[in-house]
């Protein structure tokens, strides 16, 4: 077999890598002309390269009347031959590489390629599967990356606006180095360690891991800020502001276990049993 287009052999015929389709200078120049002239008529063709369909659902959500992408002339078309923008979703499975390339070649030059979703940007959750190339930029040159799993309709509209040069990119890469003698701040320093563990465990038991952590954080912030006299009013003010019966219940429980700990008793039996 002669060499396949866009495929580079690493070891013999067994291990291969993909190389993105090259772009010639004229196309790049044409692309900037396209961006100037495109204004409010951007036709989008969606290429599904083996995602979970979550991204497709959000793309269609972005074209519904609520987000109404057609306000900006963004229209989803049925053929790559009509497209100005190609939206690649999915982690590019081996089987979908050829169809994706065909869609790419079928779209008239100059075209803008958008990599959509975590899968499109870098393979996302599927990045290390044996059957994927892991990202759109492995097969075609990409102009804009829209991260998210899936990106929300608002993120989609923002991403397309960036692709069309209407809005500017906000995110900046960063790189920091540890400074001499830098220390992590200790949180809730007034509360004994054992008590913190009990509060956090109880909150996570009741509200699930992530929300439990957040609730325990809020609870301990209140404890740290208040004195024995003000703690009740502070908790009440917080709960009144949030106005959530579930939160009230959890706070009651947290209050109970921390009081029990303060009084030197161990956790109530019912809290123990489910640990």
């Amino acid at each position, binding site marked *: 077999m002669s060499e396949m287009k866009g495929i580079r052999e690493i070891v013999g015929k067994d291990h291969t890598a993909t190389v993105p389709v090259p772009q010639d200078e004229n196309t790049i120049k044409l692309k900037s002309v396209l961006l100037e002239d495109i204004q409010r008529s951007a036709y989008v063709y969606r290429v599904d390269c083996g995602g979970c369909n979550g991204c497709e659902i959000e793309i269609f959500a972005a074209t519904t009347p609520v*987000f109404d992408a057609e306000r900006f002339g963004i229209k989803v078309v049925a053929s790559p031959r009509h497209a100005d923008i190609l939206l690649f979703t999915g982690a590019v499975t081996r089987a979908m590489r050829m169809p994706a390339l065909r869609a790419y070649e079928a779209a008239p030059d100059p075209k803008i390629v958008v990599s959509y979703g975590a899968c499109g940007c*870098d393979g996302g*959750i599927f990045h290390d599967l044996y059957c994927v190339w892991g990202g759109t930029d492995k097969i075609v040159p*990409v102009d804009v990356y*829209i991260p*998210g799993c899936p990106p929300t309709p608002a993120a989609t509209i923002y*991403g397309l606006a960036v692709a069309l040069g209407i809005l500017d990119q906000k*995110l900046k890469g960063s790189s920091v180095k*540890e400074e001499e003698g830098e*220390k992590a701040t200790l949180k809730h320093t007034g509360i004994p360690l054992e008590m913190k563990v009990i509060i956090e465990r109880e909150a996570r038991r009741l509200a699930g891991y992530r929300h439990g952590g957040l609730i325990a954080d809020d609870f301990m912030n209140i404890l740290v800020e208040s004195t024995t006299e003000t703690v009740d009013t502070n908790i009440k003010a917080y709960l009144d502001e949030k106005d959530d019966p579930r939160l009230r219940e959890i706070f009651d429980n947290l209050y109970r276990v921390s009081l029990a700990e303060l009084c030197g008793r161990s956790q109530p039996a019912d809290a123990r049993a489910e640990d």
Partner: protein
Amino acid sequence: MFKLFKSITKAGDSIVKYPFAPLDVSDDFRGKPEYNAKDCIACAACTRACPANALIMETKADENSRRWELSMARCIFCGRCEEVCPTGAIKLSKEFELAVTNKADLYEDATFTLAHCRECETPFAPRKAVDYAMDLLVQSGISEEQQAKRHEQVETCPECLRKQSMLDYDNVFHGKHLNNVHLKQEERV
């Protein structure tokens, strides 16, 4: 016809104003993980929890460094990193405008130094993690004398600690633990 116009005016405008006006996102919206390198102790809990391997950690003993990296390209905004972070250094924000034209802007990294064992000089943990452990112990209210002893302990690598404890007769003899268990049970009865 008139009826139609009437119902249209009644229905109002359902189109969201975004991007011309900021979008109201819900309280529990999970957007870009916001990272605060100052509070990070390079413990790698988040990199183990991350289902998409968007967070990675590389330890280079010869360069005395540990590098933390977040790739927004792979992140699925699940919040696992926030759940497990012991210091709250990483928190999901409401930022969703993440599209970039330059892929390099999707990456964030931070470099940390390592702590060396006071006995054998091998690097065994990030310096900030060791300091954090000590700070926690101090905060838990142990005595000055114990602090000095614990300080030695946290700055020694697990290997050397094991060797040291083998030399300590009390630690090798298991009867101590057995007795404790018995005592506790008697107390409870």
